[in-house]
């Protein structure tokens, strides 16, 4: 039993235990927190055990599942997967921590059910990143939708049914098309080897030698699934709806981790399995990526709803990540992978902070707020840190990533990169403008001054603020401070992360350059 397997099973066991405890919210919350912290603690030895100079896949384990089709239950991790596993290990305790403080469940719903779904989601997501059998990956990719479907549909806002079904159907359709491609890859293996297999390494070897035309068809199947998940424009429309309706903790999980499965899939599956197709179709992906950066940024600036704004910010950031991946440059890909981590930290923190704003004001409309920093200075400070990290200010973690993406991509794709830099400028616009509208100026807005004030009416700060609005509690600080430490720490000293991801990225890039070389 490898450490990785323990890490997959622990949250699943936790979910089963918490379901049994759903009669008592307090005990359920504490148990869930204990399981998530234990998982986080296990990430530390996992990280230590990873040897950057070793094999690409480490902590491997494998057992037969469906021998008739050469399907195994096999897990393993490379540097990229390790980083993503670490992120989810870090975020889940925070999501559980803010339950009851920032996140209020709908009336009549027990915390136990919610927490069990969160832990189930965590276990399945770790397993998705760790799967090294393409069939197993597909299975987990689809099964992973079910807890999220219930989290959005069961605990979300007014329009949650629509959002949950839309989320599920988009991802499910993408997954099914991916299944067609996976079966196609399997058939290639049958033709080539005589017996079929879904083993990732074997399929990479077989499929990457297939003719470019075959690769293009198979690539498109995988690409659609990942592009819906990531999400790239124009497959993104489910995310704003889902983000608007879901509880804050679920948005963190969705945007912070689940969507990364898409970009992770590009790196782990699309490029190694279909290098020729990746190169041939890279312009298409780059167009979508840059369109996502610009479109997401502009729409983010124009949103009136806080949670929808977060969704569009993420769409813009996923554009950057995809740009870095498909520029096929070691630097830009390292940038993209570290961006996957840093986006989780920065946007995750921004979502949590905005969730705290919403929990105090009781509204998700931006126009209901104004001058909040005067009432809650600490919350304002945290908001500023999260915002600056989101717009990639030098000194914060995101800066390194965005810089690497842009400098690396510029070498190979100068036009697309130049267009994407406009997104950096727009990021400053939407983040700072949001901060200004919510936090600065005189205290105003329905949410803060109470009924009758109406938007636009201004009052004296001391007199007008609702008494109920207080600054950050100890619990909330306990959730945010570790994030601040990581954001600034990784901004100043990103080496530990870069060391882990560099070898895996180098291997991905070298596949492409090998095939490029052989064709030229």
């Amino acid at each position, binding site marked *: 039993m490898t450490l990785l397997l323990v890490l997959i099973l622990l949250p699943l066991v936790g979910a089963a235990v918490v379901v049994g405890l759903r009669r008592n919210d307090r005990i359920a919350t504490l148990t869930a927190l204990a399981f998530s912290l234990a998982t986080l603690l296990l990430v530390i030895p996992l990280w230590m055990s990873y040897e950057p100079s070793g094999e690409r896949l480490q902590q491997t384990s494998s057992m*037969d*599942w*469906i*021998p*008739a*089709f050469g399907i195994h239950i096999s897990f393993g991790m490379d540097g990229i997967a390790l980083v993503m596993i670490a992120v989810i290990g870090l975020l889940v305790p925070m999501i559980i921590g803010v339950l009851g403080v920032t996140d209020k469940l709908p009336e009549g719903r027990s915390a136990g059910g919610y927490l069990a779904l969160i832990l189930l989601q965590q276990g399945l997501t770790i397993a998705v990143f760790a799967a090294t059998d393409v069939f197993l990956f*597909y*299975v*987990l990719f*689809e*099964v992973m939708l*079910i807890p999220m479907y*219930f989290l959005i*549909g*069961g605990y979300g806002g007014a329009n*949650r*049914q629509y959002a*949950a*079904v839309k989320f*599920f*159907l988009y991802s*499910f*359709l993408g997954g*099914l*098309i991916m*299944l*067609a491609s996976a*079966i*196609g890859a*399997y*058939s290639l293996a*049958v033709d080539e080897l005589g017996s079929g297999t879904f083993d990732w390494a074997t399929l990479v070897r077989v499929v990457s030698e297939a003719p470019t035309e075959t690769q293009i*068809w198979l690539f498109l199947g995988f690409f659609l699934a990942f592009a819906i998940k990531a999400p790239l424009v124009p497959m993104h429309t489910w995310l704003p709806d889902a983000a608007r309706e879901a509880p804050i903790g679920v948005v963190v999980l969705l945007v912070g981790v689940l969507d990364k499965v898409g970009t992770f899939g590009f790196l782990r599956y699309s490029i190694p399995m279909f290098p020729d197709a990746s190169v041939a179709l890279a312009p298409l992906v780059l167009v979508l990526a840059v369109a996502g950066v610009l479109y997401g940024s502009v729409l983010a600036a124009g949103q009136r709803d806080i949670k929808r704004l977060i969704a569009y910010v993420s769409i813009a950031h996923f554009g950057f990540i995809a740009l870095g991946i498909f520029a096929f440059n070691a630097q830009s890909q390292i940038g993209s992978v570290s961006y996957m981590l840093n986006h989780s930290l920065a946007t995750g923190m921004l979502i949590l902070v905005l969730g705290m704003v919403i929990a105090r004001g009781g509204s998700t409309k931006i126009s209901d707020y104004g001058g909040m920093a005067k009432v809650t200075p600490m919350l304002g400070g945290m908001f500023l840190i999260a915002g600056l990290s989101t717009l990639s200010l030098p000194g914060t973690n995101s800066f390194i990533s965005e810089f690497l993406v842009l400098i690396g991509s510029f070498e190979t794709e100068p036009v697309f990169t130049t267009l994407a830099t406009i997104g950096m400028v727009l990021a400053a616009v939407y983040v700072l403008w949001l901060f200004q509208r919510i936090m600065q100026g005189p205290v105003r807005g329905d949410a803060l001054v109470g009924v009758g004030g109406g938007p636009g009416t201004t009052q004296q700060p001391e007199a007008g603020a609702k008494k109920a609005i207080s600054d950050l509690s100890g619990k909330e600080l306990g959730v945010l401070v570790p994030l601040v430490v990581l954001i600034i720490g990784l901004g100043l000293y990103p080496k530990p992360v870069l060391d882990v991801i560099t070898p895996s990225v180098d291997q991905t890039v070298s596949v492409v350059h090998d095939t490029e070389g052989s064709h030229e």
Partner: protein
Amino acid sequence: MQHFLAQGGDLTVPDINYAAVLPVLIVFGAAAISVLLEAFLPKHRRWSAQVGVSIAAIIGAGVALVAYIGNAPAGGITTFRAAEATGGALAVDAPALFLWGTLLALGLGCVLLIADRSVEPGGAFISQAGMTGATQTRIQAQVTGMQTEVFPLTLFALGGMMTFCASNDLLTMFIALEVLSLPLYLMCGLARRRRLLSQEAAVKYFLLGAFASAFFLFGLSLLYGYAGSVKLADIANAAAGTDRSDTLLFAGVGLVVVGLLFKGSVGPFHTWTPDVYQGAPTPITAFMAACTKVAAFGGMLRVLFVAFEPTSWEWESALWAVAVISMAIGAILGLTQRDLKRMIAYSSIAHAGFLVIGAISLTENGLSGTLFYLLAYGFTTIAVFGVISLVRDSKGEATDLSAWAGLARRSPLVAGVFTFLLLALAGIPLTSGFIGKFAVFSAAFADGKAVLVVIALVASAVAAFFYLRVVVLMYFSEPAAEGPAVTVPGAFTTAAITLGTVVTLVLGVVPGFAMDWAGAGGFAF
């Protein structure tokens, strides 16, 4: 006449391998005994006797089947063979044995559902018409008891199905088709509390079914004219030569296949399905949806693989189109349904389309994939109808979708089980429905039908929407003020639902062993 009698001296008893056909004989024998019980036992003792005989017969047949499989010859055998003939009338080969096992297991589940009297006072087959399903007649119902003629009918139908999917010539197949169909027509009309709907369903099914039988018979006669034999293997041999009239062959193939597609409720020959599924008593709907589908596709597989394989390039494109039409009709019209039983009916039409994809991939994997799909789909369907029969209001079963709103609040267990079964029908991984789809689609893909597979996947995604709609209703909607109650199921229904659900889960998580059974061997002829 004289000529006929003169042949009498040459007639010899066909060679019969009793061990091989024992399961079928047990089922038919029990059906005959069951008829006698119905005639001679006093009314109050019939139910227990009939249930006992039916269950014992199915389990006994299962034991005989397992005993035979233990030392069956590897390539399969044909039996009921006349002295000079090259092959017998029944083929007992690996697919037939698999289908028999499937049919017996599904039949057991259905008999359990039919036998239940606790969910609805007196059971669905109450003897006095006009009694409502409400509780005030419970005492009355217990006094009058249940009409038990449904049990011999079920056994006859089951025996017919087993014969049908093992028939090695078209004439045997036609007789088996009638043996399985006639009891089903009657059984559809047995719902006495919703007489009009039920009888309408029975008449529709009978009229359309008679047409389908006529098509089959007409096709059979054309093929006999073409090949000079009704044996599947002889037709295949004749088609390999080129000097005969292709018109006869193609017209014959077309008509025979239409008859089979009708039984399998494949679109566009599906029109009876929604009405009959809705009108028939729910346990009978379960029996038709699970067992008839297995039998129809079992027969279709044998006909396509054994008789028409040499001419596959002629009919493949037609069945390709049929598969697409069936999936499209099932998935799209399913979206518009308000009644749960009709919705499942359209879902079964979509599933029939998926099954056709496997059946026209004339490869080993196509055969084993389709067989596995039938097994998986049958168990899921039985459990689905079992759950549907539990949710009732004052007028009986509450099959309108709106009645299911907020069910999860009141009955989390029933809602949870039903959600799992719906996910299986939608083909979500870790359920048997997914593995079945995967097996069928991968076989079709390897056979060069990538486009068809993509269409099927899109249809799956569309169909997923209406399954999800039910899940949304149960979990995320407010319960209706005077909604239906969930009846606590009796031991029989509980057993049937548990059987279906557990098999759905097991085949989804560890399908390896059933895959091996399904792929144990090809057809013998």
